[in-house]
């Protein structure tokens, strides 16, 4: 950049500190430029970005005097105070010595220890006997000399000083070690040129204000200070749909593009719609309280004709079927549950279809419930989506065709099909998609053709109904790179603000 342009880009604070850079000392620069330390440091940072200075920092360990140390520097170390007393009395009892020397318990104990180690006292019969000679008394101990010299830089300590440091460090608050960062400012050649050139900044326009805009003369012919466009600005965030709902809308879009009509319905359903209408025998384990949320309440069953047809389907089977061969209990069907799958909506939709409505395609998307504990991989509330195609001419190859198309829309090019089992479909299929990262097939979508035992009671005759549903919660986790299923309902606002938009 030309020097001229560079000068135009200098902020007022940068201009202020420029003449004082040679001080090479932050405190001095602060004083002379009349700025606070934060402003000076930030300005230095910007100057470095503009290649006017080069900053280097050095970390130093500084040994400083502590709170007690400062006190001892004035009054003398406790051991000196005790020694002075002994010099006078020669032999003193413990209690008396502590009292007269005016030392705390800790100070007294330490002093005894230190003096004994230096062989300046002896202990006998709970008495302290003075045993130092005059020369020893007159000389300063290593510790005393050391605290007088503080502060000192750790790296330049002599072996004696290190010894004193070590012995004082174990005592309370006599010394402390602080890390100090010093910044070294080196002015570059460019910087020197700029400092040498006469800087005229008074004509540069800073922030444009409405006042400036009022009169042309305020800005006409004047220069605008150049900004450092690369410097960082504080982050902001805006309003946003929850990521789960972004994904649900995306799912909706895919289904409607494929010509499917949305089904919605209650979360609280009768066992009849959730299980019985889907040919799930009344003793099936999924109908146990350990797996499904029951509500201690019953509801009236729908149209008698359908109920009778479902009952027959379970007990004796429809034409050509053996059924489950047991006594179907109407009361059991009345029990309320939180729906365990959106398939109950499919069953209700089928029961309302008329021949003239066919062929027809429907989808549902929403929450389902299982009586589960919560951990990173499990929860009581699950998201599911599913679609059905009701078409007298539909066949198994069509089912695979739809699955392939659906997976492709969801971004999976490679899909394989293998046999599976679901109570209300036959044939049943599991669709695996290829995970390129893990180099393996991953279970993705469950599908099948509804059994005639399901369709005949609901539709009046066994018309093929193709049905499929991918694990939607899992898919959302993949789309947003969420690893813990609990995140879907955690509502951590900081995370939600940072969450990326689904660009689909």
């Amino acid at each position, binding site marked *: 950049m030309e020097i001229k342009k560079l000068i135009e880009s200098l902020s007022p604070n940068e201009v202020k500190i420029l003449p004082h850079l040679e001080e090479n000392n932050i405190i001095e620069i602060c004083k002379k430029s009349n700025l606070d330390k934060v402003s000076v440091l930030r300005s230095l940072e910007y100057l470095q970005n503009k290649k006017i200075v080069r900053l280097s920092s050095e970390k130093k360990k500084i040994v400083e005097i502590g709170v007690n140390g400062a006190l001892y520097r004035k009054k003398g170390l406790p051991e000196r105070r005790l020694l002075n007393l002994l010099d006078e009395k020669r032999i003193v009892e413990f209690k008396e010595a502590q009292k007269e020397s005016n030392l705390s318990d800790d100070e007294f104990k330490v002093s005894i220890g230190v003096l004994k180690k230096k062989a300046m006292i002896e202990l006998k019969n709970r008495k302290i006997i003075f045993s130092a000679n005059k020369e020893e008394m007159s000389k300063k101990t290593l510790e005393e000399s050391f605290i007088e010299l503080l502060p000192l830089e750790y790296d330049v300590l002599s072996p004696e000083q290190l010894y004193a440091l070590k012995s004082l460090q174990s005592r309370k608050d006599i010394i402390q070690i602080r890390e100090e960062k010093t910044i070294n400012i080196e002015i570059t050649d460019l910087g020197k040129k700029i400092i040498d050139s006469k800087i005229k900044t008074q004509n540069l326009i800073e922030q444009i204000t409405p006042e400036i805009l009022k009169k042309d003369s305020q800005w006409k012919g004047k220069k605008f200070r150049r900004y450092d466009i690369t410097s960082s600005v504080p982050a902001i965030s805006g309003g946003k749909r929850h990521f789960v709902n972004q994904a649900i809308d995306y799912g909706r879009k895919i289904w409607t593009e494929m010509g499917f009509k949305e089904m919605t319905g209650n979360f609280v359903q009768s066992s009849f719609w959730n299980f019985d209408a889907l040919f799930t025998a009344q003793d099936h384990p999924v109908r146990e309280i350990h797996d499904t949320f029951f509500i201690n309440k019953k509801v009236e069953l729908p149209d008698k004709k359908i109920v009778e047809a479902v009952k027959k389907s379970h007990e004796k089977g429809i034409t050509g079927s053996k059924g489950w061969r047991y006594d179907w209990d109407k009361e059991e069907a009345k029990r309320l549950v939180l729906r365990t799958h959106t398939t109950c909506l499919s069953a209700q939709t089928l029961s309302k279809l008329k021949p003239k409505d066919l062929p027809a395609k429907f989808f549902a998307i929403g929450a389902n419930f299982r009586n589960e504990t919560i951990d990173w991989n499990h929860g*009581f509330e699950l998201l599911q989506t599913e679609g059905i195609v009701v078409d007298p001419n539909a066949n198994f190859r069509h089912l695979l065709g739809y699955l392939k198309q659906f997976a492709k829309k969801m971004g999976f090019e490679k899909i394989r099909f293998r046999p599976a089992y679901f109570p209300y479909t036959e044939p049943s299929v599991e669709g695996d998609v290829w995970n390129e990262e893990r180099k393996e097939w991953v279970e993705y979508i469950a599908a099948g053709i509804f059994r005639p035992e399901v369709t005949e009671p609901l539709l009046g005759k066994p018309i093929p109904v193709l049905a499929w549903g991918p694990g939607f919660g899992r898919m959302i986790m993949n789309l947003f790179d969420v690893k813990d299923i609990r995140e879907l309902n955690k509502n951590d606002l900081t995370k939600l603000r940072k969450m990326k938009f689904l660009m689909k």
Partner: protein
Amino acid sequence: MANIKFSRKIFEKEVGKLDEKMQNRIAMFGTTLESFNDKEMELEINPDRPDIISYQGFKRSFLAFLGEKTGLKKYKINKPEKNYKVIIDSSVKNIRPYTACAIVKGLRFNDEKIKELVEIQEKLHFTIGRKRKKLAIGIYPLEKIKLPITFKALEPDKIKFIPLESEKEMSGLQILQRHPAGRDYAHLLAGKEKFPIFTDADNNILSMPPIINSQLTGKITEKTKDVFIECSGFDFEILKKCLNIIVTSLADMGGNIYQMELKYKRKQITPDLTPEKAKISLENTNKLLGLNLKEKELKQLIKKMGHDYNKSFVEIPAWRTDILHEVDLIEDVAIAYGYENFVPEIPEIATIGQEDTKEIIKRKLSDIFTGLDMLEVSNYHLTIKKDQFTKMGVQEKQEKNFVELEESKTNYTILRKDIVHYLLKVFSENIDSEYPQAIFETGKVFVLENEILEKENLAAAIAPGNFTQAKQVLEYLFRMIDIKISLKEPKECPLHFIEGRVAEIILKNKSIGFIGEVHPKILKNWKIKMPVALFEINLEEVFEALKE
């Protein structure tokens, strides 16, 4: 679902090398190779195929699928010998009406095979047995039993024997109270006046189904050569199938199957391996699968699934429990044909895609909020009682019109009655996040009146926020959807608001919700350190108004 584990070495010797191709064949057979190492392999078996939840059963079916031993496998069955009888006393009629029994001789057990037998038994108990509710299986060393056998029911205190895993003689009731297996399955006999037992010709008790066998006859050991097997329960057809699954697996281990005479009112002989006959139509098969098979091909495919085929009729093995309808056979044809060989096709049928109107409205409302820089949150529909009531200033005991779930495994035991308590919970969990915090949510709430009402609600909250700010948001929202609302002083102040700073929201003379400033005592309950203003409205009236 049940998993089976077996030796990889034996599999590779008897079936083939477990290479990539074989792994693919296993998947295409409808079983999942869960894991494998040098020694073992583990398969997941779908619950509709109890006949393959043993290695023997799986091998038999899978070899047919691979095309190595196709068609119905035949087993030699020996007629009952002298005294191979089970007398079914009429006392069991209302207790546990049926049993199906067999004898298998000439077995040579080793550790591996005993383990397999125990596992078959356990897995059948768990799957078609519905944890012994529907049926229970007993297998006994024949040498300790004196034939014939009687199946009867006695008063619990008249039943006395030493159960397995015990040293003391116990009565029927004591077993239910004190024995581990007794306690686990006591609910299956609860309330019965009499308990069922099997006894031998010396009147020794062999077992008390579905709970436990007696110590006297004991377990199968390596010395056991001949066994007596009984399945007891409530559905004779299922019992016979279950028995067939066990005896054929034992026959595959090298045993000889012997029938027994069951003395019901009308004599029965079990096991009976006569295949079941069912019709399959070539036309239906081709129509459902979208194929163009010839009868000869159909026959080959049927045989690959272990059935026989003869002029539109399939002979189904007597151990298959899953064939209820022709579609079950058609699926077998599809599996034999190979799912990988079907050509996917999308028929050209024109249908029009359509979103639910309410969902469209909810999305638009959300867009209005996000335009105001508000964040959408998404909470559970289940909630914690304390959060819904106590923390909102409502005494739990006074509340009645909420929906409670039975035996929830977590402390989320009720359906949420409103959204706002969850919005306060979000604030309370985000006190370290940057302010201002402005959040909203749309979704269902549940109220119990005469019936359970599911309503679509919308709620928004601002922290720090005051009445004016909340009202600004509310009014902007309704201006944008061109619906007139008004605010009215409520007759009774909802407990979480400050009196005098709360209003009822009125749409066409109907109250649709509340708006106001949250009372400091409620904020304190949630440990929220910022003033909060919020509103919640029911959307049903809004949906109605937008229709017009």
